[in-house]
């Protein structure tokens, strides 16, 4: 089976600013991978390129062997750092929307998670707090049976108790062939669920390694390695 993601010398510029320069990266299936780096290092740019929201200046991206497009959007489940749901909609209407457009969406699972987190499906999104909206989005994204999940800062805005539930959801919900790419700077919270980490700095990848290797070779946690590498 081909890798879920293959980037070859990917470069993305915004005007004169280079957000990603010459990034080559291959992600295997069935892994939970942390995309770690300080603010403005290119994490979101990489994720947007994978989701076809940006077009690279040069280089190529293949998702399960396909260029970003309608076919890859069917198998990639994306959680942006924005609240992207229309606020006049009820939670149940948003669930219906996802059900309509994504064949791999499981609304039963979505309703289960909503009730676990005590979110009333009849409520309009504008009446929910920012943190609750983020939970709704994460539930929608994780209720899809996708091959690749791209989660951009999934736990930034939610309380620590819900954080545990969400991380638990992430590790228990994806099938063994799916890969989860999580971008964050809250490393200590998610370190325990990660199989691999990618360090990204100034638009370039400085490290791609398994978490076990880091512990074995460096003799320290990902969190302390991150603090060392990105010391200001």
């Amino acid at each position, binding site marked *: 089976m081909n890798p879920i993601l293959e980037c070859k010398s990917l470069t993305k510029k915004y005007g004169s600013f280079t957000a990603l320069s010459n990034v080559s990266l291959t992600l295997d299936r069935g892994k939970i991978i942390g995309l770690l780096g300080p603010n403005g290092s290119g994490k979101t740019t990489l994720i947007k390129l994978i989701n*076809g929201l940006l077009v690279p200046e040069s280089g190529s991206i293949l998702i399960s062997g396909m260029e970003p497009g309608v076919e890859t959007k069917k198998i990639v489940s994306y959680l942006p750092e924005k609240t992207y749901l229309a606020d006049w909609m009820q939670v149940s209407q948003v669930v219906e929307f996802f059900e309509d457009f994504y064949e791999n969406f499981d609304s039963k699972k979505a309703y289960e998670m909503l009730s676990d987190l005590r979110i009333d499906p009849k409520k309009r999104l504008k009446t929910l707090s920012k943190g609750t909206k983020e939970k709704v989005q994460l539930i929608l994204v994780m209720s899809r049976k996708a091959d690749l999940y791209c989660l951009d800062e999934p736990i930034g805005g939610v309380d620590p108790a819900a954080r545990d539930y969400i991380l638990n959801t992430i590790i228990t919900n994806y099938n063994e062939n799916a890969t989860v790419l999580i971008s964050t700077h809250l490393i200590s919270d998610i370190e325990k669920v990660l199989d691999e980490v990618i360090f990204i700095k100034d638009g370039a990848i400085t490290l791609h390694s398994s978490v076990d290797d880091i512990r074995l070779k460096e003799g320290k946690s990902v969190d302390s390695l991150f603090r060392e590498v990105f010391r200001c």
Partner: protein
Amino acid sequence: MLKKLMKHELKATARILIPLCLVLLFISVINRFLYHAGSKEGIFLFVSGLMFILQFFLVIAVLAATVIFMIMRFYKNLLSDEGYLMFTLPVKSHHLIISKLIVTLLWVVVSIIAIIASLLITFAATDDISIVMNAINSALAELKAYFGGNWVLVWIELISLTLLSAIANILLVYVSIAVGHLFTKHKIICSFVSYVIFYNAIQLLMLIVLVTFSYFHSGSINFAHMLPQEFFPVIIIVLLLECVAFYWTTNFIFNRKLNLE
């Protein structure tokens, strides 16, 4: 997928536009009774005056809501945060444009029908209406004479002219918003400026085409002397080219130049 996009687009717009049209029609029915009621003095005059003003403002509101929805649904749903969802749906970008275009076109038709119905309900069977109807009939008869009595051709050209100019105007708004989005700052002002520039460029283009056509056709650059059967087809072709250019540009920006905030 186009059907599903249209379904959700309809849901998002109908929740405001349908109630607005229904309120307009309801007020029109009440005003019909007020209009035909005999006595017109004192408090009754005051109330019926207020009701007619309300009907007038509702007509404006229906038109304004249609235009505002056209702009807001395109800008907010596609190019603000909601765009993160819309552009990661497994649909082609041109389906996003077409779904919004068709639904807007539908609302333009519905709101015009609602407004005409409102006027007919309140004022039908009065002399004013028959004057208007006579004027329309005589204009159509004149047009028919120009076209050598060919009704089919008159209607085909009139309908394509109306439809194409509505589509061209909607796509002009879309392309202006898409072009404004290319700028990193002041996107809304840039959209507005793009609209003004495109609008005037199109007017100028239309003028040049008509003058040129008139010159080669009759040796005079005064196209005001041209007859409907001569300039209708020219305008239809220019509108068609406009639509293609606006649509293509919008789709190109969505596919290659998208950069959501």
